């Protein structure tokens, strides 16, 4: 009797200890994730703030031994990202509209969503290779446009996904009410469903912008980079990630400083976009 009880007790102690140990490890894993996030942000602010200053935004990328800024790279990044977003968003929204509104649950729709989800995680450097073959080889030169098209291929799956998800959340009673008033389907979709799903779709576009503005790999072979001032999208174009990639491993101290400054800028912008997009959806779900 006593041995049975003490056996139970030791068994219980073992289970309790194992539970505490595993939960402690889980907490440690979460702490580790947060620690890495903090360490990256700390390093970025530490190394990047040295480059911050008006010249970062007014001067262009210098030769290795001169002072300079990142103006051409910042403008190039904005143009290429804007191009990618403007090219990819309509394609994504329309494709998502067809999947969610005209053929939800059909075989075709399932296939496209399946392929779309694979494109969502496909290696971005492969997209760069693809656009290199489709655009750079026939045109015989790299260009800002090629970079934009490469980025647009990263935008499309993100926007398709959020559009489908958000349109699926629109209550059918809204569509039925509009149909009862005699509205044709295209008006139901554009005037009722889009408006109801606007916030979520906007979030998708913002997340897509955040995703592409830090992408380096798809631009390596397409936009190529440019150390001069250029607004010509039909020529090789500078962009922040490309400049960072070129400058960070160079012996030139000025280049290194600029690289970290650029890294700080781009990460700050991306994290701000991410947080804004998330708080937008938060607001939306609170309203409902």
């Amino acid at each position: 009797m006593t041995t049975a009880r003490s056996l139970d007790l030791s068994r219980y102690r073992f289970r309790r200890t194992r539970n505490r140990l595993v939960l402690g490890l889980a907490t440690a894993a979460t702490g580790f994730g947060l620690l890495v996030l903090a360490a990256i942000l700390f390093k970025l602010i530490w190394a990047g703030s040295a480059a911050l200053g008006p010249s970062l935004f007014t001067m262009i990328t210098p030769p290795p031994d001169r002072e300079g800024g990142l103006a051409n790279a910042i403008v190039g990044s904005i143009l290429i990202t804007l191009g990618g977003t403007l090219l990819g968003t309509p394609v994504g929204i329309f494709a998502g509209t067809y999947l969610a509104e005209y053929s939800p649950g059909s075989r075709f729709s399932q296939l496209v969503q399946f392929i779309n989800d694979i494109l969502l995680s496909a290696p971005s450097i492969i997209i760069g290779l693809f656009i290199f073959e489709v655009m750079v080889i026939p045109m015989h030169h790299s260009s800002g446009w090629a970079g934009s098209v490469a980025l647009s291929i990263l935008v499309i799956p993100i926007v398709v996904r959020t559009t489908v998800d958000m349109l699926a959340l629109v209550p059918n009673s809204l569509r039925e009410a509009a149909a009862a008033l005699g509205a044709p389907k295209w008006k139901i979709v554009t005037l009722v469903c889009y408006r109801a799903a606007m916030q979520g779709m906007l979030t998708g576009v913002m997340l897509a912008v955040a995703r592409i503005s830090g992408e380096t790999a798809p631009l390596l072979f397409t936009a190529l980079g440019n150390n001069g001032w250029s607004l010509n999208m039909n020529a090789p174009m500078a962009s922040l990630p490309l400049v960072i990639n070129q400058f960070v491993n160079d012996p030139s101290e000025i280049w290194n400083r600029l690289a970290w400054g650029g890294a700080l800028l781009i990460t700050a912008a991306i994290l701000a976009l991410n947080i804004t997009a998330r708080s937008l959806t938060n607001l939306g779900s609170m309203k409902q």
Partner: protein
Amino acid sequence: MVELSTARTETLRSRQQYLDPIFKYGTMFFSVVVLAILGGIILYLAEGSWAAFRTFGFGFLVSDAWNPATGKFGALAPLYGTVVTSVIAMVVGVPLSFGVAIFITELCPLWAKRSLSTAIELLAGIPSIIYGMWGLFTLVPLLQEHAQPFLIKYLGHAPLIGSLFSGPPLGVGVLTAGLILAVMVLPFISSIMRDVFETVPPMLKESAYGLGCTTWEVVWNVVLPYTRVGVIGGIMLGLGRAMGETMAVTYVIGNSARISASLLAPGKSIASTLANEFNNTSDELYLSSMIALGLVLFLLTFVVLAAAKFMLIRLHQRAGA
């Protein structure tokens, strides 16, 4: 009067008869574009790599030669690097992600849940190149001065696994690349695990608690078996991401074409080879071999991601039923 308005409605209706199909087939066209992109990628990569496969045949995949000067190319070294770094990323990253998912679903107080998930997901927002820079300037010195000498001293002469931890502590190398990848896939895997853990009916968990199970026993015996397919899907999704990750790996893998048994030795992955060498390709065969590498990587990730997707779909079908 009545006739007039009927006539107007008629013209309006006939206009709608055009607009409606235009909108329908217009949007359908764009959803076909999504399929066309995938088809285009495979076709163009296959066409571009034709020269390499014609020259080297199947041997391209199993040859470790990589010499632009003699025109001999093989995919084995980069393929090996891609596989080994991804495996390290999974070995380290999956338990970490599992821990984070358990903490968020079972332990975290409600008020911190949202901000904590956001913080972990911000890790996914940080660009690859920033991970590369942080890895090269913070993690590499740390590993080189502290972790790697320790590993070499205590594990370098151990039986069986000794050769994995031999050689000089360079800081850069396959192990470092794998560790960076582990951190990069953590937000993806943990957020999927969290999502699928939340599909477990509370009744099941409460029954187990009612029988006297500890939190860990509930997770291990109830939550995990119920969500197994989804968890594996999430892990495969992370694996697909890790295999294609470019800039972060390029910065810390050391870029050596030698295949070494040691995890501390430098190596190369398919993506890092492309990022490093593509713009220097001098002749057609070199270019074609690079594109062939790209095709191999794309097909690998395609298979892994497709498997991941199938598993996640299966879980959702069951959860919906």
